[in-house]
């Protein structure tokens, strides 16, 4: 296996686009994707004819359509030579950057439009097969909050979990959402640690402010070869320099450590590929369906040791002015989760920071950014897919 096909910075991200997050917008993912496509084309002076690759992520609101990516490009007026839908849940957007880079380097296409769009607060279409209807749903487990409730209680059995540490992270991300005009408007008010600690219990010990809320929205990137980006005189570009992904970590183990995820593999691997250590990361954009997932990532990627997440968060300024800014635009937890397009939210924020376009929430040091994804809640284990993408200016 080629150790790092992204090392030479042959791939460039030259634009990002993003809609504002709304609740019950009444829009389809195609309409939301159109808004992002128009923004991407406008920023790059490209026309639909210039786009020869298109990548998208499965949308809950349209997942009953088995020809989703075809419908997308038909709606958008694109005629791609490389087309892909990715169904890695929250890893789909970052995973699509790696897949698009591979497709470009293999010569399948030259300029990829990546768009994630979803409207789960308007329409939900998903239905799970496998074990879910027979052995999971009849127990009344409350989906992802239930699975993360199990995970949190087990973590508390093995390590010390300080809820005020998670509360501090919640407050910092909310400050980001207040400064993010694209965040869901009702969330653009500050919260306190006390608000977090006393929020309504959902699936113990997980509370309302531990969790994301479904919104409608879309986001996207233009990805091309660095040589083409230079020919186009792209005024800004960032490079994906390392990517690592694993699905179904430790899968044949029937009694796994449910507090351990694939990040213990892909975190160190991505850092090694990029030649960086955790302390070199300028801003961190971890997938945040639940606050505890961010703490586990901090530990397993190597920002701190196992079980030290609470101490690390209490000792570290994770605001946009801090030593390790985390999810500076509010993340999904405070800005809103646009369904399965949610992985793209933190990805776009990472690119925005490296472009120096984050306004009042701009981080001081924007030499690189780490973006992660989490995909799928499996049965009685940690999450399904873990991925880490490192971007450099």
């Amino acid at each position, binding site marked *: 296996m080629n150790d790092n096909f992204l090392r030479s910075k042959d791939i460039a991200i030259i634009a990002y686009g993003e809609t504002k997050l709304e609740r019950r917008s009444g829009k389809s993912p195609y309409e939301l994707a159109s808004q992002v496509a128009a923004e991407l084309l406008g920023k790059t002076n490209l026309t639909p004819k210039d786009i020869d690759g298109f990548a998208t992520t499965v949308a809950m609101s349209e997942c009953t359509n088995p020809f989703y990516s075809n419908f997308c490009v038909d709606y958008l007026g694109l005629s791609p030579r490389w087309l892909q839908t990715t169904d890695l849940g929250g890893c789909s957007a970052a995973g699509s950057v790696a897949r698009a880079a591979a497709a470009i380097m293999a010569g399948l296409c030259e300029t990829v439009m990546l768009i994630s769009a979803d409207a789960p607060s308007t329409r939900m279409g998903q239905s799970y097969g496998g074990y879910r209807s027979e052995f999971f749903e009849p127990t009344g487990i409350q989906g992802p909050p239930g699975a993360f409730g*199990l995970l949190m209680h087990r973590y508390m059995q093995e390590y010390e979990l300080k809820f005020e540490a998670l509360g501090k992270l919640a407050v910092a991300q909310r400050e980001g959402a207040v400064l993010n005009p694209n965040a869901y408007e009702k969330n653009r008010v500050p919260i306190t640690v006390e608000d977090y600690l006393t929020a309504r219990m959902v699936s*113990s010990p997980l509370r309302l402010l531990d969790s994301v809320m479904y919104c409608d929205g879309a986001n996207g990137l233009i990805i091309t070869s660095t040589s083409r980006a230079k020919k186009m005189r792209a005024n800004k570009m960032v490079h994906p320099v390392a990517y690592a992904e694993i699905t179904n970590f430790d*899968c044949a183990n029937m009694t796994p450590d449910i507090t351990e995820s694939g990040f213990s593999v892909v975190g160190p691997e991505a850092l090694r590929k990029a030649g960086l250590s955790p302390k070199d990361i300028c801003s961190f954009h971890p997938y945040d369906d639940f606050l505890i997932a961010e703490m586990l990532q901090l530990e397993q990627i190597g920002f701190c040791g196992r079980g030290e997440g609470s101490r690390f968060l209490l000792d570290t300024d994770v605001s946009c002015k801090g030593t390790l800014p985390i999810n500076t635009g509010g993340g999904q937890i405070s800005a809103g989760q646009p369904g399965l397009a949610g992985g793209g939210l933190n990805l776009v924020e990472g690119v925005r920071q490296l472009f120096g376009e984050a306004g009042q929430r701009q981080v001081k040091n924007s030499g690189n950014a780490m973006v992660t994804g989490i995909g799928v809640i499996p049965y009685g284990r940690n999450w399904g897919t873990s991925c880490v993408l490192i971007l450099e200016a």
Partner: protein
Amino acid sequence: MNPIRAKTSHIPKPSALTKPFWDAAKQKKLVIQYDPDSRCYQWWPRALSVKTGKMNLEWKEVSGNGTLHSYTVTHVPAAGFEDRAPYLVGLVELDEGVRIISNLSGVTEANVKIGMPLRVTWEELTDDINLFSFEPRNMP
């Protein structure tokens, strides 16, 4: 028929593959797939062994004993479970080395404890379907 679940869509519908499990459950017996090559039990039901990739799994009755690996108290119920909330869902580790997500009965938030010994019990959802649940092993 359980008055709460009768209204819901959460009545398991056995397939040809899972029929032996639900047939045993009707007799209040817990059976789990066993991989004779790796000598390991495997849960949830599949057509092949995840250790060897062979389609040679056998259904075997297990003790029904286990311990609580983790739990959550569900305050915001899943659709169809509104009348039960708040209710406990556990991740139960069977003595045979697999973990099952299950309702917990005979135990409350006040006395639930990770590591507590549990045993299987059965909830009659319909005339044909008994659903496993777990209760404290030291119950009378």
